[in-house]
């Protein structure tokens, strides 16, 4: 425990531990510029409606208000709860795979925003956390494909920009892919809890991370992220969040608890005494009853209590200091719903 947090500090994995913070930021920046020049349309914001279906908005607002949030907040953790009846209880990461392990959590939340809140005619990859019916894509495949784009092999870790590029260009692998299941059977890694991440079998995660198996499964990848935009200010962050776009962030920012709000939730800020070479997700924002704005930083790859409420002024300081590399998850090309025809 540190910084007043109620969870252990887990494995970190921004970069491979060979570069300084400044070098890693420069790496991310140069990778972004190269990738955006190669495919500009993928890095352009796609303004999308934040119009939520009225019936869903009513339930969502009521649930947020019960937590002390203002009705016009957009807490995607709460949306997840009203959609699935609970907050998904993913397993914590056990290698330095945070760029995948925290990103897939907000990838799922973006899918929920598209399907449940906005009402798109799309389907989830599955209906639960684990096994072949996992709602999340298979993590090691994404981790490996992104690391290959970054030319990373050997030690754990990844950068955010190759991750964004892989999500957009490679797509993701559905946990129900028969060829994946066949492979996992031969590797004795097909028990339910081995999907979407083989927690407890770090050698397998690392094998994918070292590019094993990924090419034989690449052809089955689908459901690409259609765009990802680099966020550089709190205003841009809020605008994306209002459109229910989640995001993932690589930085050396460590978190501490700074206090408890009068409504009962914890308030967090950067812990300048520590440095986490880490990736975390952004799960929306909320206003307290006085109208103060908070952003929800999702670090649940370190356990379910690793969810932080970051005041807008604090996040503003991070962006102004150019500390984080933050990429949005804009539209995901989820499986299209078939027309609901009736056969008598």
């Amino acid at each position, binding site marked *: 425990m540190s910084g007043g947090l109620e969870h252990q500090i887990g494995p970190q994995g921004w970069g491979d531990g060979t570069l300084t913070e400044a070098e890693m930021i420069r790496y991310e920046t140069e990778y972004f510029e190269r990738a955006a020049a190669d495919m500009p349309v993928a890095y352009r914001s796609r303004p999308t409606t934040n119009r939520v*279906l*009225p*019936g*869903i908005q009513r*339930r*969502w607002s009521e649930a947020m208000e019960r937590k002390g949030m203002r009705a016009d907040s957009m807490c995607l953790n709460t*949306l997840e709860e*009203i*959609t*699935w*009846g609970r907050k998904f209880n993913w397993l914590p990461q056990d290698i330095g795979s945070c760029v995948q392990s925290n990103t897939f959590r907000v990838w799922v939340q973006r899918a929920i925003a598209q*399907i*449940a*809140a*906005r*009402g*798109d*005619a*799309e*389907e*989830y990859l599955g209906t639960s956390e684990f096994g072949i019916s996992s709602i999340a894509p298979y993590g090691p495949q994404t981790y490996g494909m992104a690391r290959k784009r970054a030319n990373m092999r050997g030690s754990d870790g990844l950068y955010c920009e190759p991750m964004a590029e892989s999500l957009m260009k490679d797509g993701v692998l559905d946990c129900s892919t028969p060829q994946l299941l066949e492979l996992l059977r031969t590797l004795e890694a097909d028990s339910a809890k081995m999907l979407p991440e083989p927690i407890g079998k770090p050698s397998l995660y690392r094998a994918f991370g070292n590019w094993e198996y990924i090419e034989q499964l690449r052809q089955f990848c689908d459901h690409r992220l259609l765009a990802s935009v680099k966020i550089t200010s709190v205003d841009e962050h809020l605008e994306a969040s209002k459109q229910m776009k989640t995001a993932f962030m690589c930085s050396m920012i460590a978190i501490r608890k700074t206090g408890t709000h009068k409504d009962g939730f914890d308030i967090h800020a950067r812990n300048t005494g520590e440095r986490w070479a880490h990736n975390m997700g952004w799960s929306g924002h909320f206003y307290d009853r006085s109208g103060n704005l908070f952003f929800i930083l999702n670090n649940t790859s370190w356990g379910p209590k690793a969810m932080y409420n970051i005041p807008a002024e604090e996040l503003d300081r991070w962006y102004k200091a150019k500390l984080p590399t933050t990429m949005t998850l804009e539209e995901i090309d989820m499986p*299209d*719903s*078939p*027309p*609901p*025809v*009736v*056969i*008598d």
Partner: protein
Amino acid sequence: MRLLASILVALLLSSPAVGQYGQITFSAQHRSALVIDSPEPPTLLGSFVLVDGAATIRQQPVAVIELTTDCRFWDVTARRSLTESGELQEITRETGRQTLLLSGEPGEYLVEAIGFDPEKGIARFSMVVTLGTPKPPEPPQPVIPDNLPKDFDELAKRVATWAVGVPKRLELAAVYRSYAARITDDPTLTVATAGGLLQNDIRAITQTIPEADRQRVRDLFAQINQDLTARWPLDKASLNSYWSCVAAGLEVGK
């Protein structure tokens, strides 16, 4: 024919209640005929029938009418209604006997024979002869109210027309109304899961409908499916409107 009619009229006007009657009767035997549809008439050559290359053969129900009478003059007619006649072809005719072939659209025909003999007077006989399985009468078209929603190219109005004669329309409409609401209010539903549940609920109703009416039900859903598929994809808000229109159409006339 004109002579026969004049005589009959004269007789009826002159001595309508004389009490003298002839005898006329017939029987009808149901048979199935092979009909050759050909631009050129077929030619019978021994046991071969020569036809044009484009000829087709179909089977249709007919009735063989065997008439006997002691009248000197007689005539036979067949009709389905006041304006629709059946086709009667004479096969043989001799004194007091005639064989005719009745053909036409499946249905009930009133076959009437009337005879006249100067000595015996008039004779009448009639019988209903059924060819094939008659189509059930078309149900009357519903009166379409003006206040139906106009969305989706007046889908509600079209559904009302497609649903003519479909039993349990109100129950089907209730299912559509229910899922129209749920698809936008229930966050746990995707389009596919809602579609599956809707299908189950509809089948629970249609399976209680007698088989004789099921074709109308199938035709209704075939029309709706075709329209929906042509518009796909629809997001949940649009699907809410779409299913509401289907429900409104099903509720017409009930």
